[in-house]
């Protein structure tokens, strides 16, 4: 008998026409690690909340039954609900109740009426298990986002629940904190045997941890398989979620699609994918040129020549068309180094900045050129000065040494319509009106358009950002990805010359990420927009940026077009590069690897 059994579960929100969950039937074994994925609004949160009675929303219609350890979930007492089922939501901050770490850890146990001495023991145990002694005596407000989410996890685990539900727990965290959190989840699952169900948007790290991947689409289960087989199922179903799968899995099916072997288990980790790719290249080499030594790892980036580029990459570099089979253009540093030919739209010269007189410098002689019509991506770890740089570019922070020089003909001073506009990480910070429509209409006059023009412009931006269906909603009453799109529309209505984006892809699903990149491309091509984005999303930057800039310790360590940039890195680089390192030089996307593998098997 399965631990958790869903039997024809259906659910519809009040006033909704379509059900949020539709006829879900599945069994989950005790101790399983299950990943739940799907595009935004597919019903992930709804499903997770059905599994925790105290958080189940009121619905118009419910069907089916959920059984936990053979008992209907509705029979669970409030005490059992609190002690047996843990729930972690997206926002690390608003889940924390008290202002001290130790008190937060004790909070759940206090509610259950556990005596003080036992709480002391359990809190100590949890703090040791998660390694949070270092910040045990701190006030909660002093913690970083990653620490806060880890605290939420630890606070829930003090009650030793048997089932742990996580609703996109890492969506607000940077990749390093996210990896840390997932490692803690995996540790709980491995060492305590707690059943874990985690919903995620970013699958690269979480899928290799899982025993099982469930894919939801419009409230229905479209695929349910082990990570090694989920790719085949999604391909067969023609699901858009295939694009969101980790690089090793996508690479496997792109290389295998023309041949037999689709039924074989796919590699899920970089290590497995490297072994697979090596074998693949060897067999094709041996088939073509028997006796020829296998491909040697000469990194042409080091020797000054780069390999190849696939269609997607060529499309990115200029042409708006996204044809799959483009020419294999070669790229060099020199070719893309446009310093000689173009005047920068904006340049930072030896910029030094600190927040307070006695605090350490955040920017230490940072130099950066932003060229017109380019998408520049600033990447780098946490607290390296990325967001500060963006604020200095926007003129919101003034450096105490150094200059910010802008091309006065191309870029008016200050922030606002027709000049520089900064879209913050949290899009909700922009919304001041009751409906999305009012929100957008309030921004329109800032760009100084005539009445007739305004209507047309509003319609155009609405279409481009795919928010037509949201115009009459309250801007706080939409999902994270939708809020991001509304904020983008808001910002675009101001018709900026220079658009600054802080972590724009956070919370976006894979499908919209692609359309978002296309939208930026169109705007750059048609309106002469220049974009600078700060991002942790290396894969996005590798695929869509014109120039990548590595920020470290308050200065720019490297600046180059994405291909040489990422091909030159071994650790802080795309999964495709890590897989192909030493095997296919210069490849930084799965497309590159596929093109490279094909080239290998058809030597010129």
């Amino acid at each position, binding site marked *: 008998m399965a631990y958790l059994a869903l039997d024809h579960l259906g659910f519809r929100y009040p006033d909704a026409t379509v059900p949020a969950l539709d006829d879900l039937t599945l069994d989950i074994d005790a101790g399983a690690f299950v990943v739940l994925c799907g595009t935004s609004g597919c019903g992930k949160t709804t499903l997770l909340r059905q599994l925790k009675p105290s958080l189940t929303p009121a619905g118009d219609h419910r069907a089916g039954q959920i059984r936990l350890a053979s008992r209907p979930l509705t029979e669970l007492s409030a005490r059992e609900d609190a002690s047996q089922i843990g729930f972690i939501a997206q926002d690390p*901050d608003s889940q924390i*109740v*008290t202002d001290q770490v130790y008190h937060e850890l004790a909070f759940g146990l206090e509610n259950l009426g556990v005596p*003080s001495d036992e709480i002391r023991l359990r809190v100590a145990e949890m703090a040791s298990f998660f390694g949070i002694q270092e910040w045990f005596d701190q006030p909660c*407000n002093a913690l970083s986002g990653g620490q806060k989410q880890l605290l939420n996890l630890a606070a829930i685990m003090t009650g030793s629940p048997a089932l742990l539900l996580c609703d996109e727990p890492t969506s607000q965290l940077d990749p390093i904190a996210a990896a840390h959190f997932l490692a803690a989840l995996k540790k709980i699952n491995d060492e305590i045997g707690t059943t874990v169900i985690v919903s995620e948007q970013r699958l690269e790290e979480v899928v290799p941890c899982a025993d099982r991947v469930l894919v939801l689409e419009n409230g229905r289960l479209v695929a349910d398989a082990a990570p090694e087989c989920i790719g085949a199922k999604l391909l067969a179903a023609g699901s858009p979620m295939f694009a969101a799968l980790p690089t090793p899995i996508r690479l496997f099916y792109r290389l295998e699609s023309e041949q037999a072997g689709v039924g074989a288990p796919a590699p899920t980790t970089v290590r497995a994918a490297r072994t697979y790719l090596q074998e693949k290249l060897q067999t094709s080499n041996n088939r073509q040129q028997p006796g020829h030594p296998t491909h040697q790892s000469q990194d042409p980036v080091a020797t000054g020549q780069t390999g190849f580029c696939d269609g997607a990459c060529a499309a990115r570099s200029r042409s708006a068309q996204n044809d799959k089979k483009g020419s294999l253009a070669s790229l060099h540093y020199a070719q893309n180094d446009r310093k000689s030919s173009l005047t920068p739209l904006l340049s930072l010269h030896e910029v030094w900045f600190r*927040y307070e007189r006695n605090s350490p410098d955040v920017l230490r002689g940072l130099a950066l050129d932003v060229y017109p019509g380019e998408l520049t991506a600033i990447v780098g770890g946490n607290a390296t000065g990325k*967001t500060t740089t963006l604020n200095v570019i926007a003129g919101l922070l003034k450096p105490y040494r150094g200059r910010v020089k802008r091309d006065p003909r191309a870029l008016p001073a200050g922030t606002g319509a027709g*000049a520089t*506009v900064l879209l913050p990480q949290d899009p909700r910070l922009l919304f001041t009106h009751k409906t999305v429509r009012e929100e957008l209409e309030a921004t329109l006059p800032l760009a100084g358009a005539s009445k007739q023009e305004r209507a047309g412009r509003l319609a155009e931006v609405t279409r481009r950002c795919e928010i037509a269906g949201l115009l009459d909603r309250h801007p706080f009453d939409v999902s994270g990805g939708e809020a991001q799109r509304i904020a983008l529309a808001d910002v675009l209505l*101001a018709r900026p010359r220079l658009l600054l984006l802080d972590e724009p892809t956070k919370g976006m699903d894979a499908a919209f990420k692609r359309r978002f990149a296309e939208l930026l491309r169109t705007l750059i091509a048609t309106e002469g927009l220049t974009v600078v984005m700060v991002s942790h999303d290396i894969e996005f930057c590798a695929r869509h940026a014109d120039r990548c800039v590595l920020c470290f310790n308050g200065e720019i360590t490297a600046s180059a077009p994405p291909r040489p940039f990422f091909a030159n890195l071994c650790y802080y680089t795309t999964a495709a590069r890590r897989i192909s390192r030493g095997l296919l030089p210069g490849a930084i996307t799965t497309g590159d690897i596929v093109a490279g593998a094909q080239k290998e098997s058809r030597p010129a």
Partner: protein
Amino acid sequence: MPADSSRANAFATLHPALSIGYFVFVIGVTVFTAHPVLLACSVLGALLLSLQLRGLRATAKLLVGLAGLALFAAAINPLFNHQGVTILGYIDGNPLTREALLYGVALAAMLVAVLLWFSCYNQVVTHEKFLAVFGRVAPALALTTSMALRFAGRYLRQLKTITAAQRGLGRVRQGDGYTVRQGDGSSVLSEIRQKNRPPVSQCTRPPVSDRPPVSLRLRSGFAVLSILTSWALESALDTADSMHARGYGLPGRSAYQPFRFSARDAGALALMLACAAVVIVALTSTVVSAQYLPAFLLNQGAGLPGAVRGAITAGAYGAFGLLCLAPTLFNLQEEVAWRISRSTI
């Protein structure tokens, strides 16, 4: 504010209920008796503890600030209070009396002592200690206070973030007193103060400026507040969910006590109770008392034999003196013990 760990503050390692009780008693006696000897003990004890916990610089700075206040308090009483039997002279036709002058000095000493004790209190009893003790007496109120403390910090930080975001879109203009900072909430108050004070530049700036009109600034201010409200409601819903999911509201809630009452705490408590008992007996029997107006009378109470009164008086002076010096002596003793134990390692 966390206690400075570089200074010896062994007193802060006692059970917080003890520290709180100590300060309540010492400050209470200081305020309710104007007895010169007890006041002198109190000022001396507070001063020494402040020097020990906060250092010479911080204490000197505080004393400079207090000096003005004390002079004012000492001066204002004889100027307006004309009771008292010993007339020293006349100011504007009003008598200046010795008793009123003495009373003024006593009030000033009381003020200095209380403020010094409070500055030490902040070094010893942090707000989480206070809440932990309070949590046993009134758990619901303690939890609410704890949540409120957290929210206050978050709201102020969010306010800054929203303003920065609105400025990034060009909706709120620059130069309205906000500076954008990340993460830390440490300088929030100073910024609020800055915000309330009109910037100097505003007065000197010529009438033609790029500053938007007041109406627009007001409107953008309201916009920021509106986002803050929406955000606060939204996040409060999340917090409520989190509390509900973790069983808040179940009957039989317990209160976790992070601090344990040790044998050392028991010893300190016994000593404190003994001293306090002597002082209380002396004060309630009015054996130890002070009257300033109309005539200055010291220790004029109760029809007890002189020897007993003498013993009680001496005991009360000694007990209160010991009590006032106790934290300083305790810290010193710990410091010496530490040096000795380190020298034997």
